[in-house]
């Protein structure tokens, strides 16, 4: 038995085949992976490399030798969340209060420009553009209490 999984990282998609005997083929490289404990996966023929993995929905968090990778996993053939291209939606990382809005619809922004300043945990948190583009929507105003995951500014 085998299953096909698509793993997505920031750079793109990787087709992975997982066999029941523990072999995993990633981008034509064969690796042995064994689940050796709760959240613990060991790699290599001698299981000498230890990683820790946690899943939340399609998200896979992997800890390997001090680096952390946030990946998405989908069974092949399942509809994947579309990776937006040339379009960006910025939201608060946590519940926060809007202190200032620095942009308005139609404005041009460069990657790194401050769009909105939030306050949470008694600290000011700037929300910056992650891409160059034109602001299409601004959905917050000073004083708003905003929730994570809800778009504050959209850039096209």
């Amino acid at each position, binding site marked *: 038995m085998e299953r096909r999984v698509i793993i997505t990282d920031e750079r793109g998609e990787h087709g992975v085949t997982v066999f029941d005997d523990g072999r995993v083929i990633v981008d034509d490289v064969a690796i042995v992976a064994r689940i050796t404990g709760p959240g613990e996966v060991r790699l290599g023929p001698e299981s000498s490399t230890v990683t820790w993995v946690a899943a939340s929905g399609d998200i896979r968090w992997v800890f390997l030798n001090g680096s952390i990778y946030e*990946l998405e996993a989908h069974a092949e053939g399942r509809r994947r969340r579309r990776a937006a291209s040339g379009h960006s939606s910025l939201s608060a990382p946590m519940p926060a209060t809007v202190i200032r809005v620095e942009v308005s619809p139609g404005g041009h922004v460069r990657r790194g420009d401050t769009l909105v300043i939030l306050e949470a945990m008694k600290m000011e948190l700037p929300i910056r553009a992650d891409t160059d583009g034109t602001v299409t929507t601004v959905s917050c105003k000073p004083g708003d209490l905003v929730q994570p995951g809800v778009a504050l500014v959209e850039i096209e």
Partner: protein
Amino acid sequence: MTFRRVLIANRGEIAIRIARACREADLESIAVYSDADRDAPHTRAADRAVRIGPAPSAQSYLSVDAIIEAARATSAQAVHPGYGFLSENATFASACERAGLVFIGPPASVIERLGSKVAARELMASAGVPVVPGVTATDQSDGGILAAAGQLGFPVLVKASAGGGGKGMRAIRDRESAKELISAARREAVAAFGDGTLYVERLIDKPRHVEVQVFGDTHGNIVHLFERECSIQRRHQKIVEESPSPALTEPVRARMTEAAVAAARAAGYVNAGTIEFLLEGSGDDARFYFLEVNTRLQVEHPVTEALTGLDLVGAQFTVAAGGRLPWTQRDITRRGHAIECRIYAEDPAGGFLPQAGTLLLYREPAGPGVRIDSGVIEGGTVPVHYDPLLAKLTATAQSRDAAIARALAALKRFPILGIRTNVPFLIRLLDHADMRSGHVHTRFIEDHAVELLTARETPVEALAAAAAIGAGSDTQPSARTPTSTVSDPWATIRGWGR
């Protein structure tokens, strides 16, 4: 003055640290919690726990009335404030004194005097401790602050007159950027301390931050427990602390510790405190300037405990009960090197934004010379309301190189998943050539941001591990039965003890 029952007016790792010290001293401990912390680990570390209010700290951990009421309701006789929250609040210390509670820290009058940057500076200058040139502008308008800055000469640092912790603090390098930075500093000062008064001082560019741990008792004894170098900071928030400082020569160390003891004596200091200095230059000619006094136990106190082998919290109880310091200056020696890394729920790649959420996986490393002070558990949540410090890792070894190597090895076995943390960032930081050689200053992180933040390509091992645990699962792997790749029945319980 003796007491049997201590209320711990704090949360997280420091509340757990204090509860542990209570047990060792055979004292009863009482934890307090807000609604966001109902099941938090610190509530279980103490003998009992009592609710003090809703989630926002202003109505719970920062509420003098709520804490005093909790102490009364539980018949506590003493209060340990930890750090942050009410620990440096003179009003709270005097409210404790009025309520007949022993405040485990310096007297309210000492906190008040040292808490005012202006009064503290004047006191230190009169005691012969060197200070950085600076003023609290009498005209607090943007123009008044600018004029004060102009007199001192750019660059300057503006900071909240009322508090510390980096809140309301901004470096201003020229007139052009000044207005926005002054407004931001004032807003943060009002939000954090309810007081927008700003202090302006000459900015010592790229200084080192070196502080001296002091301890006094009510019998007039004052000792120092050597220095801690805390130069690795971000927005004036310390991230890595170590001792001995790689920058201090013996003559400078002698002068600095002597100045710290003189400062504590001038202030009539009692209990644990820290005298912070900025260090400029190097070698025997290095100059240091008084920065401020932290009138409480420090976050980084484990560095000193590891280096000297002494128990600072235990000594706080002794001194608060009216006893003599358990050590004279001659008893206090140091051995090897200790380095602490603060592990924060924050996203270094995303402007270091604090993170909140559920810890899907959290496993602490252990081993000789590795101390973890933590306030979280696997499956627990990190609330949005408080400081995002999750844990402190302190590594101790015979040399600085060995301590760094030990800290690195431990961090590489410290998986925290489900919330972004600064663990990978700390690894790159400790591994940096300039860190390893001890060439650090307070702008180290800004100056090396590119090298410290560059993301690495995902290795095939990480992709394989992600695929191995199955797709489309909503459960965390610790709740899952291992798949058929496992033939050893013991494998299913392996890892429990970690």
